[in-house]
């Protein structure tokens, strides 16, 4: 983190990271007791990427996310209450309960969808950016994906496309060292996202993804360049997931002591906190921040728990206009 910390900004980022963590902790609880029915992929440990990158986007910029997308979605401005409803499959969810965690989207804040297919969001992001170019406005698109995603074809095809057409996309590889139960680098040739992007002539930078200030700074610069018409940019953010791959995964395949060490040394929230305390912010004030977001999140979860499930009949809506299952019933 740079020497002259903007304390107010960091305090805000600290709050936002805690909001994400509180959301994930509530969601994990709810997954344990069965209120969340599908799989969820918590982003605990990766909050600095969500806040540092997405916090620099305009509300009308577009965001494409992954299966591990709660943090990105919150950072883009989606309401935690609606998101909790979506995870619980209840009325009031952002997608009306049709999508759940892996397909959450909030077009109102420019969040165009998590994705259940690894890497698939990359070409869609280039498409959203292509539309921006055709329609002639100055939005940008931000597309986040994991380190495992760079071994699928859409990574190459989507990045090549964005560069060839000089599109306004900020690609962000959230490199948390693991892809499900596999250490990603064991299945990845070469140095990874940054090197691959550069081989396509795309400007790319690596950053400590657990240092919210560093991510913030790089993101601001990169976004300015992308919005300025320089074409795509890739940020390779190195981070770590604290939990298992899903909330149901104990993560036994990872050396326990390595996990413990990395959490102790790299936790982005603890690091931000240390900086804030060093800058003179009272520990009690920070504790109050944490308690406040946790309380709010608990309220949202309680709210969601009290919502009804959607009408079964809704399953036939929003399939298609022509040849809808409402009309062509069997």
């Amino acid at each position, binding site marked *: 983190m740079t020497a002259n910390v903007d304390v107010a900004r960091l305090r805000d980022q600290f709050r936002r990271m805690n909001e994400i963590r509180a959301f994930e902790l509530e969601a994990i609880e709810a997954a344990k007791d069965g209120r969340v029915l599908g799989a969820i992929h918590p982003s605990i440990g990766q909050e600095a990427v969500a806040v540092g990158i997405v916090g620099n986007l305009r509300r009308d910029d*577009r965001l*494409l996310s992954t299966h591990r997308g709660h943090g990105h979605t919150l950072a883009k401005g989606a309401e935690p209450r609606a998101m909790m409803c979506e995870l619980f499959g209840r009325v009031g*969810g*952002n*997608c*009306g*309960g*049709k*999508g759940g965690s892996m*397909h959450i*989207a*909030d*077009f*109102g804040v420019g969040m*165009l*969808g998590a*994705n*259940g*297919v690894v890497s*698939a969001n*990359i*070409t*869609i*992001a*280039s*498409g*959203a*950016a*292509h*539309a*921006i*170019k*055709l*329609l002639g406005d100055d939005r940008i698109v931000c597309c986040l994906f994991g380190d495992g995603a760079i071994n699928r*074809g*859409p990574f190459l*095809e*989507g990045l*090549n*496309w964005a560069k*060839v*057409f000089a599109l306004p996309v900020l690609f962000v590889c959230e490199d948390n060292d693991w892809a499900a139960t596999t250490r990603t680098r064991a299945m990845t040739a070469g140095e990874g996202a940054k090197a691959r992007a550069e081989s396509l002539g795309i400007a790319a930078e690596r950053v400590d993804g657990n240092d919210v200030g560093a991510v913030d700074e790089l993101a601001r610069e990169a976004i300015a360049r992308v919005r300025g018409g320089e074409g795509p940019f890739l940020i390779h953010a190195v981070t770590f997931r604290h939990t298992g791959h899903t909330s149901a995964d104990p993560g036994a395949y990872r050396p326990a002591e390595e996990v413990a060490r990395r959490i102790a040394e790299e936790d982005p929230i603890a690091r931000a906190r240390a900086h804030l305390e060093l800058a003179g912010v009272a520990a009690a004030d920070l504790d109050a921040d944490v308690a406040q977001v946790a309380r709010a999140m608990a309220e949202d979860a309680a709210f969601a728990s009290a919502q009804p499930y959607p009408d079964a009949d809704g399953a036939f*809506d*929003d*399939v*298609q*206009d*022509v*040849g809808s*299952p409402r*009309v*062509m019933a069997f």
Partner: protein
Amino acid sequence: MTTYIEAGKRAVAEAMEADPTVWCLGEDLGRGGVFGQYKGLVERFGPGRVSDAPISEAAIMGVACGAAMTGTRPVVEMRFSDFALCAVDELVNQAAKARFMFGGQSKVPITVREPIGMWRSSAAQHSQSLEAWYTHIPGLVVVCPATPADNYSLLLAAIRCDDPVVYMEHKNLWPLEGEVPQEAEADPLGKARVMVAGSDVTIVSWSACVHEAAKAAEELAREGIGAEVIDLRTLWPWDKEAVLASVAKTGRCLVAHEAVAVAGFGAEIAATVAEHAVLKSPIARLGSPRAPIAYAPTMENVLRVTADKIAERVRTMTGVKAVA
């Protein structure tokens, strides 16, 4: 008179003229596309709206999906429907489901042009007709035009449609000539057309095979058998009412298509007719044997559903023997 290929081009041009958010993307479009379907369009609308693409079918489809969710109406050119198999996740897991998964927050108005069918000695990777696949996928509309008039009015309708449409032109039909009136308009998707009227048997078909059915009907008429040929035009939604009405009249039904018979869309129609209609003879289907398409003409021809085969099957159904 205009050709099937020109009629399609006219539809694209008029759609682009009327709506500045319509654009085309695909390999070699800047030089008119591999069959010339886009010839002249880049000169008229510029390379931004008639866009070349890298050889990246997955990107072409994924980009179209993303661009369709955000205010444009892409016309995707897949060159050969076989190559669309490189972009199935993008079409089936993404474009077809996005509107639903996101609870209606966005629609995905893309038209995916996928030229299908056998085209002399194009062999196993350039000849497939996989329309049945897409009829099985919720969210997709599937269109298979057989005439120049339809390739105009249905393509126009497809581009205007807010759903993802898989639009399958038959490569053998490109030079087919027909009338496309100057004042022609977009046709509603999902309506069949009675191509030949008849009262003894209903032949349901689509795409190039419709013309084989019509030839068979001509021959059968000479033998005193009245075959009604229905061109389905749109496979999803398909015109159940039109088919059942015809079958109610004729009491017999043969479904004929170029694709592999096993699990072809003919099965869906045959099953539906069998479920709902009272028949004088069992429902019948004709399609390709379940074999890849061979290169040598002898082996390729044996897979074709021809007018002769259709007529022969109808004769069996109606109990009439062919004149020797």
